[in-house]
Structures are given as C-alpha cells and as structure tokens.
C-alpha cells in the first residue's frame, strides 16, 4: 500500500485536548468531531486539510486522555498517516485498533510543512517528492500487522471469536 499527500507539521507533546477538546465529546459523530480537529491550537486545520494529507509531529504525540475521538477526528479529516518521533501509548493502540496508520521516525524533523511525501508501507520507505530524499522506517511487529490487515481490532475479533 502507498499513500501520497501533503505534510502538516506539529510539535512535541500534542495532547488529546489539542486534537479534540472535551467540550465536543458529547457526540460520536465523525463529521462533527472532524470539524473541530485541532481547533484550539490550529483553527484553520479542519478547513484546509485534504483527503490523503499526512501529519508529521515530534515526541509523545497523542498524550493525555484515552478518548478514541482523537484519532477518529483525525481519520475523519482524511489524514492517511501520522508520522511522529514517538506516540503516547493509548493513542498508539487506538490508531491501530481503528486502522489509522502511524509511523515512528526519529528524523522526521527534516520533513517540512506542505512537502509532498509518498509512504510505501510494504517496503518501509518514505519519499520526499520535494527533494527526492528517502527515509526508512520500521514496519509494525507481526502481531500488530495482523490486526491492521484484518481492518482493525473489531474485524480481527469478529474473525477470531464471533464466526
């Protein structure tokens, strides 16, 4: 699988209150959640983001609350992958469980705002189309790949336990 899109850059310790403030958690509607994505720290984001775009961030992305509304609102905006130096653990599992791709990449600082990049998941490579630079990343451990290939945790559970 390959994904190509524009880069939206974020800093360190982007927390779940930054991603979706709690005042909007009285709904589970994806469209509504997405319309408030990053509202407090980057009000223009949800209006300008395009299907296929990619988030690139620093350390500890998604720290804070366990609210799955956070990755859901990002996914609902059309974001296809989040690349960060590291992820907070509950956010990481929520992404895997709902089938939103994430990549840990130490030198993602080198990617710039609005660069166009192409991610090749099969081969673990990111190509920056603006300067031709290639970055390699670690693929998911086998266990997680199994969940992702099933289409998320619930599909994995359905196949394994419900049929």
């Amino acid at each position, binding site marked *: 699988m390959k994904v190509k899109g524009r880069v939206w850059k974020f800093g360190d310790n982007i927390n779940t209150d930054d991603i979706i403030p709690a*005042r909007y*958690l009285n709904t*589970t509607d994806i469209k509504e959640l997405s319309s408030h994505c990053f509202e407090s720290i980057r009000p223009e984001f949800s209006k300008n983001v395009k299907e296929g775009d990619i988030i690139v961030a620093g350390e*500890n992305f998604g720290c804070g609350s366990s*609210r799955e509304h956070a990755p859901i609102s990002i996914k609902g905006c059309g974001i296809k992958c989040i690349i960060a130096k590291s992820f907070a653990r*509950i956010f990481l*599992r929520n992404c895997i469980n709902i089938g939103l791709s994430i990549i840990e990449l130490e030198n993602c600082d080198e990617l710039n705002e609005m660069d166009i990049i192409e991610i090749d998941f099969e081969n673990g490579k990111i190509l920056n189309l603006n300067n031709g630079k290639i970055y390699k990343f670690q693929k998911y451990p086998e266990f997680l790949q199994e969940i992702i290939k099933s289409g*998320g945790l619930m599909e994995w559970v*359905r196949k*394994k336990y419900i049929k």
Partner: protein
Amino acid sequence: MTLSQKILALHCGKEIVYPGEFIEADVDLILANDITGPLAIEEFEKIGAKKVFNPEKIVLVPDHFTPCKDIKSAELVKIMREFSKKYGVKFYEIGKAGIEHALLPEEGLVLPGQLIIGADSHTCTYGALSAFSTGIGSTDAAAGMITGKVWLKVPSAIKFFYYGKLKKYVGGKDLILYTIGKIGVDGALYKSMEFTGPAIRSLPMDDRFTICNMAIEAGAKNGIIEFDGITEKYVREVSGVYHDEWEKLAFGDDSEYEKVIEIDVSKIEPQVAAPHLPSNSKDVRQYSDVKIDQVFIGSCTNGRISDLRKAAFILKGKKVHPEVRCIVIPATQKIYYQALKEGLIDIFISSGCVVGPPTCGPCLGGHMGVLGKGEVAIATTNRNFVGRMGHPESYVYLSNPEVAAASAIKGKITHPECVMERSEG
C-alpha cells in the same frame, strides 16, 4: 520480573513474560464511562456481538458530563443505561455513583493482583491496590467485552524509591508532580512506574491513589505499589476479601528494572505545575505572585475524603477571597455523605465555596466550572493542557488540596503555611 510483569504472566498462562513481547491477557474488570462507553457499545454492536464475556466484570460509570449537561450527553448515558439492561453489566446511576476511579475501589471491585482495563486514561489509579491497571480506548473496551481479553505489549519498568520524612503540607500529589517534573511527560513512555521505599510504605491509601492516578502524565502504561498492611486493611474494609497469594505481589530485584530512581522526599516542598504541562512542577513559592480567578478541589486525582479533610483544615474559619470562585466536588456520593457527616461541607459553605455533586465536570472543561478567556485556575486535577478547563486562552495550575485551599483564601497561589496561625501549624 517486575511486579507488573508478574501479574501479566499470571493472566496469560505463562511462567515468565519478557519486555516487548505481545500477549493476549485475560482481564478481571473492564471499565468505560459516558464519553468512551457509547463508542465502545457502537463497536460492539457493529460486528454483531450477541453477548458479553461476563457481565459481572464489566462496569459502566457515567461521570464525565453527569448530571447530564445537555441533550447530547443525556443521549450518551441513555445508550449505556440500555446496554446495561440488555446485557446485565454493572451500571452506576448518579446518586449512587461518582467518579469512576474513586468509585470502583470504594465499591470493592478492585482487588490486588487483578488485570484491569478501562477506557479512561486514569485507569492506572488502581495500581495503588497492587493491580495491573491501564487505560485503553473504546475499541479495546468493545473487544474486551466480547472476548474477556486484551492485547498488550509487556512493558519494561522504572522503579521509584522514595525515602525520608515528608514535610508538612506535602503528600502524594506533591510526590507525583515532583517525579513527573523530574522525568518529563514522556519520561516513562510505554513503561511501568513501580513506586516503593519507606516514604511510600507510610503513605495512606488516598495518597497512593493520587500517585498511581498520575502515572499516565509521565506517559506510563501503569503505576503500581506493592501490597502491604495498608492495602490489606483498605481491601478488607471495602470488600471483606483477603487472599494469601496477595502477599507475593512484591517487586523484582533492581536488576529487573530499566532504571532505579531514588528520591529524598524530605527535600520536596508543596508542588505547583504551571501551564501547559504537568511536568512544569516547582516549589509553590516560585508561583506565589500568580493571581487566580478560580479554584477547583476535586477530581479522580484529589477528590477523596482525605483530600477534602485537608482542604477543610485550611479553610476552616476563613473566607474565600472575594474575587475568587472556589468549587469543591467530592468524588463520589459516599465521600460526599462522609464529608457532610464530618462537618466538612459546613466548613466549605461557610467559607464561601460552592459544593457540587460528584462529577469529573470541571477537570476536563466539561461543565460546572468552565474557564473563560484569560482566566486562571488552580486545580487539584491532573492535566493543565491548553484549553483543558475551558477557553484555549485560559490557564491551569495543578496542586495539592492544601495549596488550592490556601490560594482560594489569598486570591493568588499560596503556600498553606501563609494562611495558618502558628498554633495551628
């Protein structure tokens, strides 16, 4: 193995587990609230599940936006109420409930050695009772309700060894704020924080809950404290249960840990964490010029009876500053009633506080104390992120209950000793 690893091994039928290994473990208790529960129920129903693995082991607690703040939140709680009726899972209605992380231990649902998952990041609180307890998402909760299992990557651990005598007005909240300040908000990312040492052994249970509650603020998977006489007394009181095997819930040797961090608690002053990270913690005196608009005493971190006693001790016979709103929220109905019987509510009301019903409300900017633009609050809660308690341009300082109460009196961030007479101190 570390204590956390020992508990995980017992729950996946292995003699030994290794850090980094993926396991599917059996869960003893699954929790969800009015924010995460409805999403979990949606997922549960979407794949056509017909039953839960064990209704006794699933608990739904509406506490974040309750008593329901608007129509949408009322609809969410309705989904939980109906699910509970249909599948027989536990549901705690307001009036008999409160904040999940104060409620579950109080109800005797948490026992040492258990593996607990909760669709709320502060589920790590129950490590205070020597359980492996960790926050997960709604989809995890849905999967767990069907299978009784959770996938986990076995964590490595950092051992925190606390020694020395605590100063006056220093408690569990100050130890954890100090610790997060030392290691940072990702200082324990994916790891267990295992708390030990003579200063922990002498801490009352409520302070232990506060410490484990905030392990997530350092990025940890779980926080845990060894089983001892204080744990035994608490668990016997709330559940009437005791098992010999709990005595074996001990930490591993230092060599089993990634790091051992020693902290001399006698050097720790009451801590205040400045906006916008819990790791911005310093001696309260460093922030003594900060004027405040609102004080909030409550939450899953510091809304227990001993927290209210500490706040009341400071506020007794004094008045909240005329330009400050002071909100006190007992964490559960039982705590509220106990505070009423002890005369604490009397003290709060006489001093000009407003006392609210049990809810997470203000901590997450939900309701019952939301901040406006430019406003500053000091709160006994756990997070001070941008916009956490309201407007994106509002500011939250975190502290213990005594500091919050003293600040309410002075209208600015204050060391408790500044409002106490010598004879009282």
